[in-house]
């Protein structure tokens, strides 16, 4: 089995290295095909591992030593257990689909080969992240995906906004990574090891306050990767990258790494329910917060990005409340339909020549049938309509909130579910229904390549049926995660809740359709709604990016300039130069003593004599006083 483990892990790396060999050459189709093929190999190996793990086994292997010094021992160790195998499946499935899709999507791009090098490298990092058997290995993957995300967001490096967004993402993630790093340090100095099995078996022996700190710092790391408030701004900006990147990294896999971390570290978080509550509350807040921003946005990809953010909030609610398997399940289901949504959006973008404003589209249903169906179904899944995947995972989170008696969280999540349905279908309605507003801009949309649609179809299927795996999945992960069933015991309440939620969501969908399916004009900022305070607030993302710019970025730049021009050059360096100049000046001035006039010299000699005598007296007297 270890062979499959290594194949699953290193096939993407091989693909990446192979592609990077051609990074300089003009586009060649085979690069994409080989990279995709290798990804598929990885997927197949993961599937084999899945069946193996379902048999009740786990694979744990240690490739070689990485860092060993003092008491610290960090190997390149990999583990395939019930949790990581689920992640591996998600990652390999989505990335295989995205790879194949990208062959079509990046067809006309100069950096075709380079794109695959980055993309496969990302998959490799993600695999390291999920398969590692220790925190340091996790951190490798953690930073690795950050790097690839940087490279892919800034893939079109000639675009100022893209490179800016890439840097923003990297730096924001770095802030969180610091928290993660501190968490790792805490674990090491208190447990003496970074191996999951050792840490989790000994974590109970620590003082509660230390466990709390560990939990907090690790979660700070998770907040950055999963773009939780207040480190969320990078995710929306990250949409500057090519759309397959958004689908793979910023929807399905990388951003869920934070959730994975919390799920993986469940023995730690089990011991600190207070932190769990905080996580859940933050998650609920982010769910609503992000959904509200998605309501008014006019950038197709950003809307989906906010939706991702919102769903990540859901996952954190589940994880924070101790329902780790629910979080992981929603992670999986979300990966499928969100990736599908993004890839659909990619098709639309292609068709619309990179136009992103859904108000400038409309009526695309006729030209892009396949995409239309897929995006609609993905949105339905996202909204959580029975029997799509979202229903099983998302409603379960609502139930978790209810069962755990966190009614505020429950209410917030319920409200958010409505908002989600609304903005998802606002998008669908604006893009595919109504008048063909794009004609005003002289665009002639066309459907994407057939094989791209075919490539997307596995995601479609999974988005529809993923819910039916629920019990199998539960059986699988209960080996590793707390196997709590979240059932509303009272049947009446259960049915009221379920049906009520469904009705609420459907009402939201219908409202969205009603409002937007016959939209005819492109808003120009003149309508009353667009002038209202709330609209502006949401439109400007609560002014948070602006605030960050004003509070952090600009002062930092200004402070840096001051540090250089004022402090470094004018104080530190000037002091040094002043000392040097002082010595030099002393020389210049005392030159006059050497004016060659002997009687002046004699006089100085007398002065010297007197000074020396005074010194001698002082020392002698001092010596006698002290000595006596």
């Amino acid at each position: 089995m270890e062979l499959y483990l290594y194949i699953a892990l290193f096939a993407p790396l091989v693909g990446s290295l192979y592609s990077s060999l051609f990074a300089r050459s003009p586009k060649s189709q085979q690069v994409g095909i080989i990279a995709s093929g290798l990804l598929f190999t990885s997927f197949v190996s993961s599937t084999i591992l899945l069946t193996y793990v379902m048999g009740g086994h786990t694979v744990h292997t240690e490739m070689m030593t990485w860092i060993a010094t003092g008491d610290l021992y960090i190997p390149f160790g990999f583990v395939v257990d019930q949790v990581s195998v689920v992640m591996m499946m998600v990652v390999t499935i989505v990335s295989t689909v995205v790879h194949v899709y990208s062959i079509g999507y990046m067809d006309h791009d100069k950096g075709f080969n380079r794109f695959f090098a980055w993309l496969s490298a990302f998959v490799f990092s993600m695999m390291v992240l999920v398969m590692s058997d220790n925190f340091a290995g996790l951190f490798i993957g953690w930073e690795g995906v950050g790097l690839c995300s940087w490279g892919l967001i800034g893939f079109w490096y000639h675009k100022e906004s893209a490179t800016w967004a890439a840097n923003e993402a990297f730096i924001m993630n770095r802030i969180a990574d610091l928290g993660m790093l501190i968490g790792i340090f805490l674990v090491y100095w208190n447990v003496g090891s970074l191996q999951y099995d050792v840490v989790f078996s000994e974590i109970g022996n620590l003082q509660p306050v230390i466990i709390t700190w560990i939990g907090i710092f690790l979660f700070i790391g998770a907040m950055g990767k999963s773009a939780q408030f207040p480190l969320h701004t990078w995710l929306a900006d990250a949409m500057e990258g090519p759309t397959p990147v958004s689908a793979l990294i910023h929807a399905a896999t990388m951003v869920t790494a934070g959730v994975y971390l919390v799920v993986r570290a469940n023995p730690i978080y089990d011991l600190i329910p207070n932190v769990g509550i905080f996580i859940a509350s933050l998650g609920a807040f982010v769910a609503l917060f992000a959904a509200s921003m998605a309501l008014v946005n006019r950038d197709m990809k950003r809307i989906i990005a906010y939706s991702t953010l919102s769903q990540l909030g859901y996952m954190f609610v589940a994880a924070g409340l101790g329902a780790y398997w629910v979080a992981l399940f929603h992670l999986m289901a979300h990966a499928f339909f969100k990736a599908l949504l993004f890839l659909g959006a990619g098709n639309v973008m292609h068709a619309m020549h990179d136009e992103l404003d859904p108000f400038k589209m409309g009526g695309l249903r006729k030209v892009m049938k396949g995409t239309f169906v897929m995006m609609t179904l993905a949105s339905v899944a996202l909204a959580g309509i029975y029997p799509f995947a979202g229903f099983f995972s998302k409603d379960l989170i609502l139930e978790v909130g209810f069962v755990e008696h966190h009614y505020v969280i429950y209410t917030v999540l319920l409200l958010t579910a409505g908002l989600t349905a609304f903005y998802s279908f606002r998008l669908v309605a604006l893009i595919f229904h109504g008048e063909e507003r794009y004609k005003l801009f002289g665009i002639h949309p066309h459907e994407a390549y057939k094989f791209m649609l075919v490539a997307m179809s596995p995601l479609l299927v999974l988005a529809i049926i993923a819910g039916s795996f629920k019990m199998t999945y539960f059986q699988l992960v209960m080996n590793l995660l707390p196997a709590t069933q979240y059932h509303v015991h009272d049947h009446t309440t259960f049915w009221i809740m379920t049906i009520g939620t469904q009705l609420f969501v459907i009402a939201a969908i219908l409202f969205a359709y009603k409002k937007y399916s016959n939209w005819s004009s492109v808003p120009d900022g003149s309508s009353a709604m667009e002038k209202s305070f709330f609209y502006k607030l949401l439109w400007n993302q609560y002014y948070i990016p602006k605030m960050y710019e004003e509070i952090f970025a600009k002062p930092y730049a200004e402070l840096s300039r001051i540090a250089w021009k004022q402090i470094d050059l004018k104080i530190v360096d000037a002091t040094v130069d002043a000392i040097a100049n002082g010595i030099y000046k002393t020389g210049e001035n005392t030159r006059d003593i050497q004016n060659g006039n002997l009687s002046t010299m004699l006089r100085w000699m007398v002065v010297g004599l007197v000074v020396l005598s005074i010194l001698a007296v002082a020392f002698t007297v001092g010596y006698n006083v002290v000595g006596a």
Partner: protein
Amino acid sequence: MFEAIAFYLFAALTIVMFTITVMTSQALYALTAMAAGMIFISAFFFLLGADFLGVIQIIVYTGAVMALYAFGMMFFDTTRNVVEKGTNPQIVFVLGVLAAVMVVTIFVAPIVSNNIQALYPIQENIGNSQAVGMVLFTKYLVPFELAAVMLLVAMIGGIVLAGKKMDKSLTLMKEEEIGGLDEGFEPEAGGH
């Protein structure tokens, strides 16, 4: 009592003589006063039991050194008043007194604390000259020889420096000729 009288007498005389040496504007007065002062100083040496040193003081200083100065002065115009340009006498005085006080303190302080021990104690049964000779030719032999060599060097140096062109009489020569005596050097001033 005798010692005290002698000390105060000679002290007063020495101070007066040296003050004249320093203050007078006549070179001859200065020379004479100093020679007298030297002799008075030798009296202190006798008082202190350093007979040999006293004799040396008279012979070497008053005999040799003063004679040398006297010869030296023949070269210069000694009849003329020595004109000193104004320096601030107050500063001079204050500095000098200060220095003196310091020196006194330096010398007295260790004695007060009784830190000094005799390395070569004066033996009571032998005379000063003998004792001096014993120490000088045993412990201080090398410095003594060095001093001898130094004196020799000084002597030769003095002769060479002063004795150059002794065959020419500077007093009888004209100023231009004096100026031309040193080849390679430009005389800076045209005499007096």
